[in-house]
């Protein structure tokens, strides 16, 4: 089935777009790895993840660490099925726009 381009304002904010782009090809990423890869602060990433989580696009899971000696748990972040669909549709919309055929959104 062909992907329907759809511009998504929630995803389109620059950091959120990059978060979704990093999560799309993988199953899940540790919060710290995502933060370092994007070069953003803990607070900024948390804020954007909260927005994406509330939209149903991202889910987080806390798990015990295999490397930490203390009891703190790592947060793993993943795109949900809805998040994958929305991101793919948004990227398709960006491709349409970049090709000069602006889509209605």
């Amino acid at each position: 089935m062909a992907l329907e381009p759809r511009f998504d304002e929630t995803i389109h904010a620059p950091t959120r777009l990059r978060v979704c782009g990093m999560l799309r090809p993988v199953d899940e990423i540790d919060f710290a790895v995502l933060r370092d890869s994007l070069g953003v602060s803990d607070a900024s990433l948390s804020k954007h993840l909260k927005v994406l989580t509330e939209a149903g696009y991202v889910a987080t899971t806390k798990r015990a660490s295999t490397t930490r000696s203390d009891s703190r748990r790592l947060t793993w972040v993943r795109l949900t099925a809805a998040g994958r669909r929305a991101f793919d549709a948004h990227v398709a919309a960006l491709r349409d726009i970049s090709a000069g055929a602006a889509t209605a959104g």
Partner: protein
Amino acid sequence: MENDLRPSDGAPRRAAALLDELAADRTRLAQRLAAPAWLYPAFGALTALYVAAPALEPGAASDLVTTLAVAATLLLVWAYPRLSGVRVSRTGASARLTLGLLLGATLLLLSTSLGLVALGLRWWTPLPAVASFALTVQLGRAFDRRYREHVRRGA
């Protein structure tokens, strides 16, 4: 909003810049996923142990070595994504084929090892074990390159 894409003359250029930035992020992620130098030699040592195990006298020692080699391999497969901070299961057809080849070659070399023992040529079993080590390192690294290329292109 700095990346406002409402229809205007500059919108196609800004959309293209965003797509380029996503591609650059995927490239950085793929680079980050490169396995440390020790990983595939470690897998190679474990498969070599598994292939060489039939050379031991049948019984507890052989069973113990086989069990330890398989358990350590599974532990490494389980632990490595947790250490790296990224878990990827969609590795792409090319990487899956490479992994299939590696599994097939390991079973073939194990059969060779068992055949040598059955023929009374126990002291030749290091040969398939060394071949197993070399194949695991080479095909493991090929798997690593291919699945990272899959990530770089976007799954």
